[in-house]
């Protein structure tokens, strides 16, 4: 009987997949690395897979002292913290990081990235109301900035594929460990001293997927949003205020020099895309909300509106212009992360084939935005009206209480700052 059950009953408890780290796990590991770096440590990271296909990750300082060895062995996450030579085994990286960083880290992350749907809806309603009010006050703003005027502003906001951004981030990013002294596994504490963790150079500019504070989102959405000065890369590179305006006209893609890695949970998530967003929807029916803050002018190439790494048949896109949106083209691409592999948070991710989907938002026949999409659901993305089942433009339960006109799309909050869980 037990043998029969063993053959036919699927364990209810899910197990972590075998093989290399998943994109979700990579993002979580990168978050740990980012937090270490944020404390002033220059850390190196090395990834590997054992001969039994169990992945590991080693984080060390620039002196070669190993700080952490993290592995997924037989579905459990093992963490060796060399500072106290403790080895812990947990069900998931979440649990492991609770031990490493304390319980407050998760709360902080949730505040940063995930807010309850009800709160998010209220926030968005407030944000759009403020935008609407701001729009009314901006009497000198042309009614239609979808033309060259909008393009002038957009030119100041680099896209995720901007080579200068990629170069800057790659230069500022981490490098694969070299000259690392192995932690003396099982042989006493590692020689990690206070000096090895402190006093190390801080990166001048670096990708920080966790730096998406709700406070900043609120501030931006409330119309006080000059480009964030918190990030060096944003200085002088953010969207210029509209002439004669009070400088509150925030253009989408307002995080120059950064890429926000947004990861959905196991449930149904709504993830706001943008030109600096790499989204991982996770399980469930996920909605990828296209910011569409830029409308292409004649002759201009479509602007990037981010990357989706795991699009499935259960997921769909939501466009700000609803049924007016049309998928113009779906072109296979060998790597949706091309040019991004050196960025923190994306390091070590394999080449990810997918498609490049261009979308006409306003029905003028020109592709306005391009989204790079990977995952099993890309086969369902075909040119035509965005009401295609796999890429339906949702008009129900729309994120925007007011159907925004294209002229007001430039006031959307910077993409990648809110994840509705």
């Amino acid at each position, binding site marked *: 009987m037990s043998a029969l059950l063993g053959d036919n009953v699927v364990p209810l408890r899910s197990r972590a997949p075998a093989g290399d780290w998943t994109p979700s796990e990579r993002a979580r590991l990168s978050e740990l690395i980012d937090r270490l770096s944020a404390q002033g440590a220059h850390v190196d990271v*090395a990834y590997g897979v054992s001969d039994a296909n169990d992945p590991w990750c*080693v984080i060390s300082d620039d002196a070669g002292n*190993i700080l952490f*060895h993290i592995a997924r062995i037989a579905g459990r996450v093992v963490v060796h913290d060399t500072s106290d030579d403790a080895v812990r085994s947990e069900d998931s990286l979440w649990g492991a990081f609770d031990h490493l960083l304390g319980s407050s880290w998760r709360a902080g992350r949730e505040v940063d990235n995930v807010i309850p749907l009800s709160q998010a809806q209220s926030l968005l309603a407030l944000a759009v109301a403020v935008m609407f009010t701001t729009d009314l006050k901006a009497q000198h703003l042309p009614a239609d900035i979808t033309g060259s005027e909008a393009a002038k502003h957009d030119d100041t906001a680099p896209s995720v594929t901007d080579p200068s951004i990629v170069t800057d981030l790659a230069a500022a990013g981490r490098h694969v460990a*070299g*000259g690392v002294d192995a932690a*003396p*596994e099982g*042989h006493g504490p590692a020689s990690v001293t206070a000096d090895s963790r402190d006093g190390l150079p801080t990166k001048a500019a670096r990708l920080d997927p966790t730096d998406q504070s709700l406070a900043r989102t609120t501030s931006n959405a409330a119309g006080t949003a000059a480009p964030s000065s918190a990030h060096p890369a944003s200085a002088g590179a953010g969207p210029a205020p509209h002439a004669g305006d009070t400088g509150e006209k925030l253009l989408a893609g307002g995080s120059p020099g950064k890429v926000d890695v947004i990861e959905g949970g196991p449930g149904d998530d709504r993830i706001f895309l943008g030109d600096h967003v790499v989204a991982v929807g996770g399980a469930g029916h996920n909605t990828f909300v296209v910011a569409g803050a830029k409308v292409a002018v004649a002759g201009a190439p479509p602007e990037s509106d981010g990357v989706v790494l795991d699009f499935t048949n259960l997921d769909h896109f939501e466009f700000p212009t609803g049924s007016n949106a049309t998928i113009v083209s779906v072109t296979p691409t060998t790597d949706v992360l091309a040019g991004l592999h050196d960025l923190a948070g994306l390091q070590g991710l394999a080449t990810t084939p997918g498609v490049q989907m261009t979308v006409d938002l306003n029905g003028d026949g020109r592709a306005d935005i391009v989204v790079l999409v990977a995952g099993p659901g890309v086969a369902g993305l075909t040119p035509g009206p965005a009401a295609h089942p796999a890429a339906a433009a949702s008009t129900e339960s729309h994120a925007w209480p007011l159907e925004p006109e294209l002229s007001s799309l430039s006031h959307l909050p910077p993409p990648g700052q809110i994840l509705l869980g």
Partner: protein
Amino acid sequence: MPRPAVDPVRAAATQRLRRAAGRWLKAAREARGLTQAELAAILGLRYYTFVSQVESGVGRVPIESQGDWAAALGLDAADFAGTLLRYYEPELHRLLFGETPDPVESKASA
């Protein structure tokens, strides 16, 4: 006091030698017919992926356990330690034992 900057050339050379050491360790293990997990069990390691780590050239076999590694791999402890020293501390190895060919270069030219 600020830490001296890491010399990238030296770091690259170190990494190259560590990887060579890792390949040598892996070859020795496979010659012994052991999986990484089996070797880790013999050595009493708390997680076997440490073997994969050092075989990948990340870090190195701690000095205090090199005798155990040699025994597990069926190698002479002095030879084992000497070989690893040549990879891990080539200058010290040169001072102790005189000029020896670069293990990576000599293997490449063979």
